[in-house]
């Protein structure tokens, strides 16, 4: 069974490419804990804005720091912010969605879903900017701001999927057997929406990386000296005509990571959804 799944998975080119790209950046982030080509706190002003060379494969920035090292450590920031934001979104959104599905049409359902609509109605980046502006810019506040907007995404998805599951015969059987709503949700509903959640989680993860880059770009994400892809882009903005590599490499890092995660999300959806798989064949 698992061998069959693996074969299908490896046959899915989207998934493989996505997975590889994502692994490169996760790997870079993990490696950076143990080793980076050059300390990112080390400034070497005379060596600033040097194009790629053997000593600095991706060149140096305006303070003479090694861009490859900055991107590796920056991956840590991006991934940490995005992971925690997804965990916040899932941790709060999924139980809310499950609860809303249990009492469909009840006051609780209405309150949860209209609350979701309310959060959806606000432009997410604007609210994120407001939160960081009020509580001060930091990686933590960026995580909270991004996380809040993940909650309704997961709540809606979970509720929609759970509603159809609640009409299934095996859920009926569980109810007849005397299981409570909480137990049914945990034992029968949740396992059946996990696939959906993983796919959505991957997509939200990539959106989280983009959001973190955007917040850092406007100076509201991780603060210096912690490297961040978005701030690397912002710093290079006025130097783009004299040192284009300073903008190209962090930009590529964001692009490839988000692309990789999206491809992975698409691939996982194909893998999990047998109907689509059959159509492909």
């Amino acid at each position, binding site marked *: 069974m698992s061998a069959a799944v693996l074969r299908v998975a490896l046959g899915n080119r989207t998934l493989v490419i996505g997975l590889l790209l994502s692994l490169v950046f996760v790997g870079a982030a993990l490696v950076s804990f143990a080793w980076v080509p050059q300390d990112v*706190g080390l*400034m070497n002003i005379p060596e600033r804005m040097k194009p790629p060379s053997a000593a600095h494969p991706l060149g140096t920035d*305006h303070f003479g720091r090694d861009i490859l090292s900055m991107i590796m450590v920056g991956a840590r920031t991006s991934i940490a912010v995005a992971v925690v934001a997804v965990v916040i979104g899932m941790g709060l959104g999924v139980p809310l969605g499950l609860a809303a599905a249990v009492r469909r049409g009840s006051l609780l359902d209405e309150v949860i879903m209209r609350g979701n609509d309310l959060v959806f109605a606000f432009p997410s980046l604007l609210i994120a900017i407001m939160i960081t502006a009020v509580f001060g*810019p930091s990686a933590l506040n960026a995580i909270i701001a991004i996380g809040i907007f993940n909650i309704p995404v997961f709540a809606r998805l979970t509720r929609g999927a759970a509603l159809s599951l609640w009409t299934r015969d095996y859920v009926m059987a569980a109810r007849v057997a005397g299981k409570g709503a909480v137990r049914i949700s945990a034992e029968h509903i949740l396992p059946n929406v996990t696939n959906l959640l993983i796919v959505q989680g991957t997509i939200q993860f990539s959106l989280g990386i983009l959001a973190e880059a955007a917040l850092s770009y406007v100076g509201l994400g991780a603060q*210096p000296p912690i490297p961040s892809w978005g701030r690397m882009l912002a710093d290079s903005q006025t130097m783009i*005509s004299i040192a284009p590599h300073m903008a190209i490499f962090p930009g590529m890092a964001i692009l490839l990571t988000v692309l990789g995660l999206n491809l992975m999300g698409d691939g996982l959806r194909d893998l999990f959804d047998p109907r689509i798989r059959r159509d492909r064949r």
Partner: protein
Amino acid sequence: MEHVNVTRGMASMLALVAGVGMAQAKTDIVVGMQLEPPHLDPTSAAAGAIDEVLYANVFEGLTRFGPDGAVNPGLAESWEISEDGTVYTFKLREGVTFHDGSTMDAEDVKFSLDRARAADSANAQKALFAGITDVEVVDPQTVKVTLEAANGSFLFNMAWGDAVIVAPESIENIKTNPVGTGAFKFDNWVQGDRIDIVKNPDYWGEPAKLDRATFKFISDPTAAFAAVMAEDVHAFVGFPAPENLPQFDADPRFQVLIGSTEGETILSTNNKQAPFDDVRVRKALAHAIDRQAIIDGAMFGYGTPIGTHFAPHHPDYVDLTANSAYDPELAKSLLAEAGFADGFTTTLKLPPPAYARRGGEIIASQLRAVGIETEISNLEWAQWLEQVFTGKDFGLTIVSHTEPMDIGIYGNPEYYFQYDDADFQQIMTDLTAESDPAARSALMKQAQEKISADYVNGYLFQLAALRVANAKVVGLWENMPTQANDLTAVYWQE
């Protein structure tokens, strides 16, 4: 048929374009600036942007700064100083009118000075007027100012933008409709975008060469670069991205002007906050900083290292940079001596300019090397004024003090970096009372040495005036002896 029309239309358009090209020299200019003034009254706010738009263009004082920083006659044609140096009798120019048509006379001078020195005055530089005991109108063209004691820098003080002459008739709306005596009249202020000034046809002196000037406010460095490149602005004063200047320099369409300013850029240190109340810690800070790296890294080489709070182009400047030479080992041992062998953590609050934001990152890295950790927070100007300048809630900050000859701020223990030293305050008192040039020079040197020896702040570099202008624009000031963009002599060369 339609094709013919289009062609004919294009031809006439081309003719139009060509016509513009052949026209006489332009008589208007668009000057880009990064900061917009909060309002337009130079006599009631510290914001340099107000003077940068209005000084010498719209408003004039009794005396005025020339392009070289010299104090020249302004609205006062001449003056006499009494034997003991306490009574100044100013002879005002004839036939000077404000832009609203009212006459500028001794009554206006008395009004302006009394308003500035009043107890409830909102003037940002009240110290300039502190010694005045009486302003007397002798006749419409003569004003007698009596001082408490002789003050060698009184004429200099009267040249500041904070000491310009305003009229009681127009004072009420000065913040939105400034009425002065200058060669330009205020025309229009589109908030968030631009201020227009137009030539004053009734000017008492040499009339302005331009008919119209626009100050356009562009805060984003990338947008500033694009605006100059597209020739949407004809000159940009205080260009925010020094890294772009070599590109303008290489382009024959533009000229790059690098001048001196009065801006001492310093690592301001909260002298009342532990551990900075210990002179050994401040000395360690001074030795932990590599000035040249900051000038190169933050300003791309534009700036002159300073070792005290004084402009290097001033004749009385003493080069004290050796007193705080870069020596991280010495810094570490000083910290150990003060009981901080393991270092400590402090705050570094940075206002928006590149010298502060970039310089802050470099300083944070240099301080980390000797064991001092800094928590950087980037602030907007309003927050900076509130938290740092007014609230004094900071450990370290970086700011450029652009007022001319402002070493006197060290004599004020209430000033935001809170340096409170009786000896220094005595030097300042002596300096104010002294009018003999040689003795004044000695006192100014003494003052510089005192603050350098006490390591009050980290002295980084003298800000350079970075300007880029269209190659055909002539007459901009070379240096910035005060916060001003005097456009009265500017014209287009064809």
